[in-house]
């Protein structure tokens, strides 16, 4: 009986084999052959381990010499010896013991030694102490921070704002919160270092377009569109805009609202505006503002926001008071613009130096008209001009860069900053001093 059932099962099996479709049989056959091959093939280890004896390993460990932790810095490195400022870096600044007029700090609206700002900060100090002792998530959120965020959102006419405790970290944390591996970012060549670091942390693809050249940007967007085969500069190519306004916040526009106010653009069209409060607002820290949809995401994914202590309340109170002053005197922006135009005109025509920058910008550069050929030599020449100007009580500074780390290193230059506190005579004096010194040094 057993054999009969066996045979019967066998018959069924053979029948199934005949009835199965051909591709099925072929597939099974290939799989069986593959298994046989795998069983008989030689195994190879995943990691090559060369057979070093313990003694050889110890010798290698003995022999290995690392580089020194840091390479030695030459004593005459231009950035090694800092200028020491005694006292506040305000309009009249004491640099290395000499009193000068300050044409180097970004104190555009002169709020650095404004007594109202100081009083507000002092009141905050008496109430809260100095530090916040925690990040925003863990009892580091003060009512002052919430106030400042509200005020900034109202000032910029956006839905929400978020503040950071360090200006550099603002845009450097905002970019990686949204843009990850696999995303594309189109960046201006002259973007500041903080943006470059944010892009590096985000690991996205980066496409650079020529400085301020919209035709170049359009060309890049078109190329990307062809690659993507997506249909349809922002709505046409479906890109988002992040604007970095550290130097234009509190400077451009009728009420100091920055570039969007200056050109009359609807603020909702910009996805994110990031600025630091260390220039016009004369405080410390930075903020991002935009729609709630965009900004709220940073509260959990902005690294510099979540993992760092919050802004000391006295600095937030100072920023709020500075905003109050800006809102009460909208006339200062026009005054600042006028002064910029004045000094821009006065500095034209210096032999050997050319003015680089728009006449609206309160911070512009003086570059050598003809470079000597080596960057070091240029830097030395410019430093000579700066030192002599300081001797004549005009405080200037060279624009500093990390030469090996910048993507597109600008040529060496002297940065001149115009503030509201500088009188017309001082501007004239500065212009003539620079002219004289430049003539003396460069000719």
């Amino acid at each position: 009986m057993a054999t009969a059932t066996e045979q019967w099962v066998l018959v069924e099996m053979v029948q199934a084999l005949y009835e199965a479709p051909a591709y099925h049989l072929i597939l099974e056959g290939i799989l069986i052959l593959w298994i046989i091959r795998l069983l008989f093939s030689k195994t190879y280890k995943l990691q090559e381990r060369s057979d070093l004896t313990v003694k050889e390993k110890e010798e290698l460990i003995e022999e290995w010499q690392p580089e020194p932790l840091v390479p030695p810095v030459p004593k005459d490195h231009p950035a090694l010896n800092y200028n020491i400022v005694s006292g506040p870096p305000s309009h009249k600044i004491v640099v290395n013991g000499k009193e000068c007029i300050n044409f180097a700090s970004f104190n555009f609206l002169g709020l650095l030694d404004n007594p109202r700002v100081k009083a507000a900060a002092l009141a905050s100090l008496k109430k809260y102490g100095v530090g916040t002792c925690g990040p925003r998530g863990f009892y580091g959120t003060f009512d002052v921070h919430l106030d400042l965020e509200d005020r900034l959102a109202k000032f910029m006419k956006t839905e929400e704002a978020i503040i950071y405790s360090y200006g550099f970290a603002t845009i450097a944390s905002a970019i990686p919160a949204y843009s990850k591996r696999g995303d594309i970012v189109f960046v201006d060549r002259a973007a500041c270092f903080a943006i470059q670091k944010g892009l590096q942390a985000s690991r996205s693809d980066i496409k650079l377009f020529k400085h301020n050249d919209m035709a170049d940007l359009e060309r890049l967007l078109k190329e990307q569109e062809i690659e993507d085969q997506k249909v349809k500069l922002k709505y046409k190519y479906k890109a988002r805009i992040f604007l970095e306004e550290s130097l234009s916040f509190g400077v451009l526009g009728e009420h100091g609202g920055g570039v969007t106010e200056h050109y009359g653009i609807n603020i909702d069209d910009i996805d994110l505006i990031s600025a630091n409060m260390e220039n016009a607002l004369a405080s410390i820290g930075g903020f991002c503002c935009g729609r709630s949809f965009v900004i709220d995401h940073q509260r959990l994914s902005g690294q510099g926001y979540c993992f760092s202590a919050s802004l000391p309340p006295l600095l937030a109170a100072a920023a709020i008071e500075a905003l109050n002053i800006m809102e009460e005197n909208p006339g200062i922006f026009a005054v600042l613009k006028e002064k910029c135009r004045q000094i821009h005109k006065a500095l034209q025509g210096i032999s050997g130096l050319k003015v680089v920058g728009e006449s609206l910008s309160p911070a512009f550069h003086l570059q050598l008209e003809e470079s000597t050929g080596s960057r070091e030599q240029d830097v030395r020449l410019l430093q000579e001009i700066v030192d002599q100007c300081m001797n004549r009580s005009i405080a200037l500074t060279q624009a500093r860069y990390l030469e090996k780390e910048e993507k597109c290193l600008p040529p060496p230059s002297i940065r001149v900053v115009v503030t509201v506190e500088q009188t017309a005579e001082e501007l004239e004096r500065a212009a003539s001093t620079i002219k004289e010194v430049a003539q003396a040094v460069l000719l």
Partner: protein
Amino acid sequence: MRPGPGGCCCRRTVRANGCVANGEVRNGYVRTSAAAAAAASQIHHVTQNGGLYKRPFNEAFEETPMLVAVLTYVGYGVLTLFGYLRDFLRHWRIEKCHHATEREEQKDFVSLYQDFENFYTRNLYMRIRDNWNRPICSVPGARVDIMERQSYDYNWSFKYTGNIIKGVINMGSYNYLGFARNTGSCQEAAAKILEEYGVGVCSTRQEIGNLDKHEELEELVARFLGVEAAMAYGMGFATNSMNIPALVGKGCLILSDELNHASLVLGARLSGATIRIFKHNNMQSLEKLLKDAIVYGQPRTRRPWKKILILVEGIYSMEGSIVRLPEVIALKKKYKAYLYLDEAHSIGALGPTGRGVVDYFGLDPEDVDVMMGTFTKSFGASGGYIGGKKELIDYLRTHSHSAVYATSLSPPVVEQIITSMKCIMGQDGTSLGKECVQQLAENTRYFRRRLKEMGFIIYGNEDSPVVPLMLYMPAKIGAFGREMLKRNIGVVVVGFPATPIIESRARFCLSAAHTKEILDTALKEIDEVGDLLQLKYSRHRLVPLLDRPFDETTYEETED
């Protein structure tokens, strides 16, 4: 308690009727004094490790009880299911969508952020969101005033009722030495400097933002740490993320602890060096990585590494563990690597004179190549510093990203750091600094001992002022935070993604400003809440550290 026949290790209580008790029943578990004493002495003996340590190193991470782990997973499973259900309802508009959405004109753009990343936020974090970002309106000292918030739509939005909950015991702020004060010598000095210098600086260190105050601060920091020179920066996070790339680059190797802070991870990634991770505080894992790195060189090309940098922290803030510094230094010397020590939480908080983890172990600060720390926690200010040899600091002055592109520290903040540091060093003529350091150490020992006696699972080293108390289950995270606030105690609870998913915890940060009464009140309430929420999981099964089996480390390499 007369010493029983077992000698001084065993304490056998003599009961009223004259019998000698062998042990006690506590919390449902029989605990014999002999076993406990043996366990304690085992830990003591096992971690002496060949005389490198001058004091006992008692660190323990009790294992998660099996039932609790299972229930935690079940809890997360249920939450995920409900999350999908709610998303479904929101998608079909059966339920109102509370969170902000993209603009109409931009709906067909590529989405700005990943949706799945958001699933956790929408469906799990939102439910218990009221435990974080609690706004305060007073100085963050031992007691703090919290602004009351109400939510009528399940935490999607908050309204301030206008009430202020006064005098909440603050167990969440990083105020180790109690310098977060709005009165006293530090505040007066800072006020004076504020009047004189103003608040902002408006320039970078290399341009015209280097004030005489900064130079004074850096000299003081160098003296405090016992190193040749130091440099100060405006933000602790940025100190790491901007200086590690200046020190190492392509062709270098970074060996980083598993549980390093986000700033160290970001700095390591931005540098472009190869990163290898070793198990948390595990010296065998580190040694194996070092050996393999030197013997086999760079991957594929086999060229020797240019330099090897070990990144460790003094106190790990989520675990409460202290780095095994004597062993790390021994390894570093043997293999010629460089050591970068991040003392964000340990500076001021450890050591007989408050000089950090180097002082705690009695080692030489010159052995640590780069000593980094922050001023936020023990000095009541903000900012970070790096200390080391003069060549290192000269190099950082010229090549650090922060010196070139970032604004320098604000003058009143600098003054606060100077005053508080002088106070800790004892240079202001009082012994306030020394008292604070001692008070913190006493508070730490007392608090940890009492919590362990109550039966909670407490992670970390016995001397670390960061005390993590394990909660495990997701619902208990929210419940613990809320119950403690009801009883007027503010605590910090942490869950995923700051911790592994089943190991959520409450983290207490002790402070020298906490008096014994405050601690006793807090302990009483924690005891009550622990009974209410059934948090006393400990079975006193402390795993002695070297007995843990060391498995073959296969390192993960991340190359950028």
